[in-house]
């Protein structure tokens, strides 16, 4: 009997069965409690509520939404807001973080010091405190629409948000804007290709885009001029133009500054990890410092930066849920309202979990794919 117990396989099997049994028992106990409680409170489970009217307003979003529309529609509005804020915040934080990472390595002590204090201040205070601070600055700290600040002509900043002119998209305006964008794109690509030392002559693709752009832009000259919808003070608020709400601006400002400090550190350590010999070799070839950084150091540093950058991107997506603190209607806050209103806690929590897991998994899958592509190929 004792010998039987000392058999490694038997012991392993006994342990595993015991752990599994304990786990299943815990699940069963919690499920039984839940069903019991739900029955007592008279809560109907099921996803039938999704097609019922939501009856709560959502302050901003891309999809047209009315409180008479379904919960499903409300979720879609929230989800789009989450994705929009995540993508914008990641993009902006990458740019600022890159600058900060370089500033941290600057030979100039003033630049280095300012960047270091920024990073320490951002990293050692909670994001939600920063968000509330920015929200207070943008609401309590700014004047009312009647006394709005006008930092540039047509641009108004008040406690109701930032109002700015927006192009009217009608007639020739759409092709004209596409044309301008294409010209800018081709000029940018050509310049980038030159600095990256790739092609002295623009590739046919760039020429094609540029030509298309010029053709469309000339349509602008022939047809209509670009017209703008300008914000104007009417009563107690501005009408017309486009608006960035204080909630959105506070969320973006907080997320971008906070994340850029972390990205700055990733960029810095990535660059630091490239051996000094690479700099020296590139210098001895006669390359100038910016081109060394761009052509020699960064391509090697990126390999080291991708895994920590991935977890920062995931953090941004998860941190967008702090929108709740400033009242921006992201997916989590729409869901919170729904749960409060319907009492469908289990369904709501399940949807919430599923949505964020899907977003997280797709971001990591995307980044892992990119990582595979740039990984050093060795035999």
């Amino acid at each position: 009997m004792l010998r039987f117990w000392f058999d490694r396989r038997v012991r392993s099997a006994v342990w595993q069965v015991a752990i599994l049994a304990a786990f299943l028992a815990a699940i069963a106990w919690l499920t039984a409690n839940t069903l019991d409680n739900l029955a007592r409170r008279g809560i109907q489970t099921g996803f039938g509520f999704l097609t019922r009217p939501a009856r709560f307003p959502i302050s901003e979003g891309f999809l047209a939404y009315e409180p008479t529309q379904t919960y499903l529609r409300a979720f879609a509005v929230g989800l789009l807001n989450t994705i929009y804020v995540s993508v914008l915040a990641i993009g902006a934080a990458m740019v600022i973080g890159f600058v900060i990472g370089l500033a941290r390595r600057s030979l100039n002590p003033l630049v280095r010091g300012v960047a270091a204090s920024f990073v320490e201040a951002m990293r050692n205070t909670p994001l939600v405190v920063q968000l509330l601070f920015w929200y207070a600055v943008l609401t309590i700290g700014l004047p009312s629409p009647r006394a709005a600040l006008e930092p540039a002509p047509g641009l108004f900043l008040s406690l109701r948000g930032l109002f700015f002119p927006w192009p009217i998209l009608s007639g020739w305006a759409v092709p004209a804007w596409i044309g301008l964008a294409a010209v800018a794109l081709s000029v940018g690509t050509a310049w980038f290709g030159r600095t990256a030392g790739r092609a002295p002559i623009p590739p046919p693709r760039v020429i094609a885009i540029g030509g298309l752009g010029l053709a469309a832009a000339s349509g602008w000259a022939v047809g209509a001029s670009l017209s703008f919808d300008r914000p104007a003070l009417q009563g107690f608020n501005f009408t017309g133009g486009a608006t960035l709400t204080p909630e959105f601006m506070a969320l973006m400002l907080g997320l971008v500054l906070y994340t850029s400090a972390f990205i700055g550190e990733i960029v810095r350590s990535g660059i630091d990890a490239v051996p000094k010999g690479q700099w020296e070799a590139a210098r001895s070839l006669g390359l100038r410092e910016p081109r060394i950084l761009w052509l020699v150091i960064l391509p090697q540093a990126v390999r080291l930066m991708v895994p920590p950058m991935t977890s920062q991107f995931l953090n941004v997506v998860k941190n967008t849920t702090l929108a709740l603190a400033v009242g921006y209607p992201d997916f989590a806050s729409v869901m919170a309202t729904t749960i409060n209103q319907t009492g469908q806690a289990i369904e709501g929590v399940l949807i919430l979990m599923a949505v964020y897991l899907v977003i997280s998994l797709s971001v990591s899958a995307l980044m892992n794919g990119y990582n595979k592509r740039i990984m050093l190929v060795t035999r």
Partner: protein
Amino acid sequence: MSPLSVLFGSLGSAVLTIALGAVLILALPRIIQWGVIDSVWSANDGAACREATGACWAFLRAKFRQITFGIYPLDQQWRPFLAMILLFACILWSLPPRNWGRSLLVLWGTAIAAFLILMQGGLFSLVPVPSAYWGGLPVTLILAVSALGIGFPLGIVLALGRRSAMAVPRILSTGLIEIIRGLPLVSLLFMSSIMLPIMLPDGMAIDKLARAGVALTIFSAAYLAEIVRGGLQAVPAGQEEASRALGLSWGQTMRLVVLPQALQKVIPPLTNTIIVMVKNTALVLVVGLFDLLSSGKAALTDPAWPSPFTETYLFIAAIYFVMCFGISRYSAFLERRASIGTAR
């Protein structure tokens, strides 16, 4: 290089120096003007602050107790004060490595018990104060301490489970870790504040504070588990094999041979996670708990004062900064200390 050539050596450097210098020279006098010269340091109500153009530090003085202790009954506030001092003293005592040992566990056990008795009351003729009235810094501290203190052993168990040769614990731990790490903390807090009361049997009540504590603990356990796993992977397999060959059991091998080496290797990421968790306690705001941040936010709503949010949020941010920056400096000290043995 001389300081001058560093600051003005190249065109780019000179432009940056002048631009940054100009910003600093323009901004600093204004900040001093606002924060020191024009500011109001003492006032009984908001009238003086409304007239002044500078900072309203008087607000922080007037609301100091509300911000640090929340809505705890005013005449009983010596209790959270004492409890807070107790926790801070324990943290400070735990810092020097020579104090590390089994006695530290006893100390922390006693300290937490004393903290709870002081805050909760009901014993030793202390007036009972339900946790719904707790607030401010003591709540922030106890949430951080319990999330890390319970989350760390839990994280070690999860990490060992994930590296186990047995399929059942491996799959369960991996699943749990990945699900928790894929979710935002806000949603976990919601989940525990909404779901826990439904999932527990009738009559088994769990208060708001404990619910938030559960969410924070599980969250930190999942992140700590990944860090511990990294440390475990860095310990050569020969260590475990040698220890097993000497006749030590699996438990002894882990406790005496593998874990000490693994944990030593992961001090820097470990302190990073500790800082993240200290900051994360501020999120309990979304489930309506009165931690430091929410208490400050509540203090701002007093109509007698011209809500001086800059001063209040700066004050709260400064408290977090001191704690988090302190932890990161301490981690740097531990790393230096660890490298003494290996440096040549």
